[in-house]
């Protein structure tokens, strides 16, 4: 079966200049030869840290950026040569506060974009009402967007992206900055898209989101895809590992480096949690390192210590760090 989205060796370089008197041109390779395919009805996740190339990849697929090289097809249409036809068949939703007209009501925002995205006039009212119902904004549609919470704006974004009932939807970090309850509702809405037969490309850096929503995931870092598969496939990368979580306060960078070099330690990642630094120490399964690690932390304030099974997040961190 022909994939709905087909990306082959896609590259994108940005050129920028610095300096006032002596202008210097700098080239930044944001995407360096990305390839993947998405089948019909699939929810595909593009997972990566900030600056990994997720948004640049999406912007090439939705025709807002022209690739430096490589090719990308959506529903068999070339995103450069057939940009107009591609636009008719895709929806684009991004996260954050922007992308809406603040001084217009939600209804007027949807009405305007319905016109731009070619929704037939006789269907507009019904379609807008359907979508307001879907995203839970029914009854609030006459209010100006400037009074909306971040979660409400994000739901309005989703409604806007679905106005013309596109078969393919691109979601660029749609839950970023949304409170936990709002994010859960948004995830339920996203899950319902594939139930409605849509093909979805979702970018996120929330592991649990990718794990719970995506059929397949590609991990992208520094502009390259470093792993691709189902969430289970990616977890299998670290299945032979065990993780010790150690909560520390004010740990010195050289101590972390010493832990990394310790015998039996595969990798160490650090997560900042308010005043604490939580160390995630990966080692081979069955290897009991807790006492040795605590001995090496002598002089550092240590809080909670726990051993656990590896998660998708551990797989992700391992992939990103070794890339």
């Amino acid at each position, binding site marked *: 079966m022909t994939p709905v989205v087909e990306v082959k060796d896609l590259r994108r370089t940005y050129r920028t200049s610095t300096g006032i008197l002596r202008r210097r041109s700098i080239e930044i390779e944001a995407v360096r030869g990305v390839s993947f395919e998405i089948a019909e009805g699939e929810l595909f996740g593009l997972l990566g840290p900030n600056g990994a190339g997720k948004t640049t990849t999406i912007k090439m697929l*939705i025709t807002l950026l022209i690739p430096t090289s490589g090719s990308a097809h959506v529903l068999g249409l070339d995103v450069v040569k057939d940009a107009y036809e591609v636009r008719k068949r895709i929806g684009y939703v991004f996260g954050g506060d922007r992308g809406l007209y603040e001084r217009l009501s939600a209804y007027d925002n949807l009405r305007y974009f319905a016109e731009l995205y070619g929704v037939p006039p006789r269907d507009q009212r019904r379609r807008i009402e359907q979508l307001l119902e879907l995203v839970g904004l029914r009854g609030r549609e006459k209010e100006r967007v400037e009074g909306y919470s971040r979660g409400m704006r994000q739901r309005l974004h989703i409604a806007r992206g679905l106005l013309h009932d596109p078969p393919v939807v691109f979601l660029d970090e749609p839950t970023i900055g949304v409170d936990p309850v709002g994010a859960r509702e948004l995830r339920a809405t996203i899950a319902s898209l594939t139930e409605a037969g849509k093909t979805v490309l979702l970018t996120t850096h929330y592991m649990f989101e990718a794990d719970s929503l995506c059929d397949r995931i590609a991990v992208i870092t520094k502009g390259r895809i470093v792993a691709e598969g189902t969430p289970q496939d990616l977890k299998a990368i670290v299945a032979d590992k065990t993780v010790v979580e150690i909560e520390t306060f004010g740990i010195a960078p050289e101590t972390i480096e010493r832990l990394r070099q310790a015998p039996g330690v595969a990798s160490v990642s650090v997560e900042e949690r308010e005043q604490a630094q939580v160390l995630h120490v990966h080692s081979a399964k069955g290897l009991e390192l807790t006492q040795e690690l605590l001995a090496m932390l002598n002089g550092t304030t240590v809080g909670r210590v726990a051993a656990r099974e590896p998660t998708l997040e551990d797989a992700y961190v391992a992939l990103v760090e070794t890339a």
Partner: protein
Amino acid sequence: MRSLRVLGVGWLMHFKLLSRSSFNSVLGIVYPLFFATVAFFLFREGSPHALLYASLGASVMGIWSATSTAAGGALQHQRREKTLELMVAAPVHFSLVMLPITLAMSTIGLYSMAATLAWGRLVFGISLHIAHPALFCLAVAVTVVAIGMCGFLLAVAFVRYRSAWALGNLLEYPVWLICGFLVPLSLFPGWVRPISWVLAPTWGMRAIREAASGGGSLLADIGMCAGLGALYTAIGVLIVGRLLRSAREAATLSLT
């Protein structure tokens, strides 16, 4: 038919959007009044005809300012708010998206026109006697549309080049001068006149004054104004595709 709907709905939404910004609305009305006041003081010693000349000129200055400076600022705002990307990603010719925005801006300029004329009447006692009221309204309408079309041509450049919004500010005062809003074109050196002739506001200004005073080649001036507006639109429509492709190559549609 779809094109007309896109234009109509686009104009309505952007007119709503612009008129709901209280800061811009106050600025759009108060700012031209300062220039109008200076003009009234300068022309006060002249005949009542000279004051009317200044009053009408100052009122059209507001329409031009609302378009030239606001077009750049509004486009930069849309770029910052990422709505520009959504407009470009829409499956519709970009001219149909951009033209109603600049037309809404020039329509907003009517507020400053009304405020300037009212200011002249209330503070300086300038009576507005219109010889041909219907033609005066037609001349104003055509001038507003032509200035909106001129703004469209500028906006196309603003979309491609991130810093081009400053061009709108740069063009504000020169156009006031060389379109004869306050100073008769006959006072300028000969080489300035051909530049004035290719600017639609020159003909719109002439038509508005002639409709008020009741003389001259009124319909021909309205025709020239409308024709030049149509020419700007045609040029914009022709080049917008190329400039958008260039913007997609250079990644200038967003600020990040």
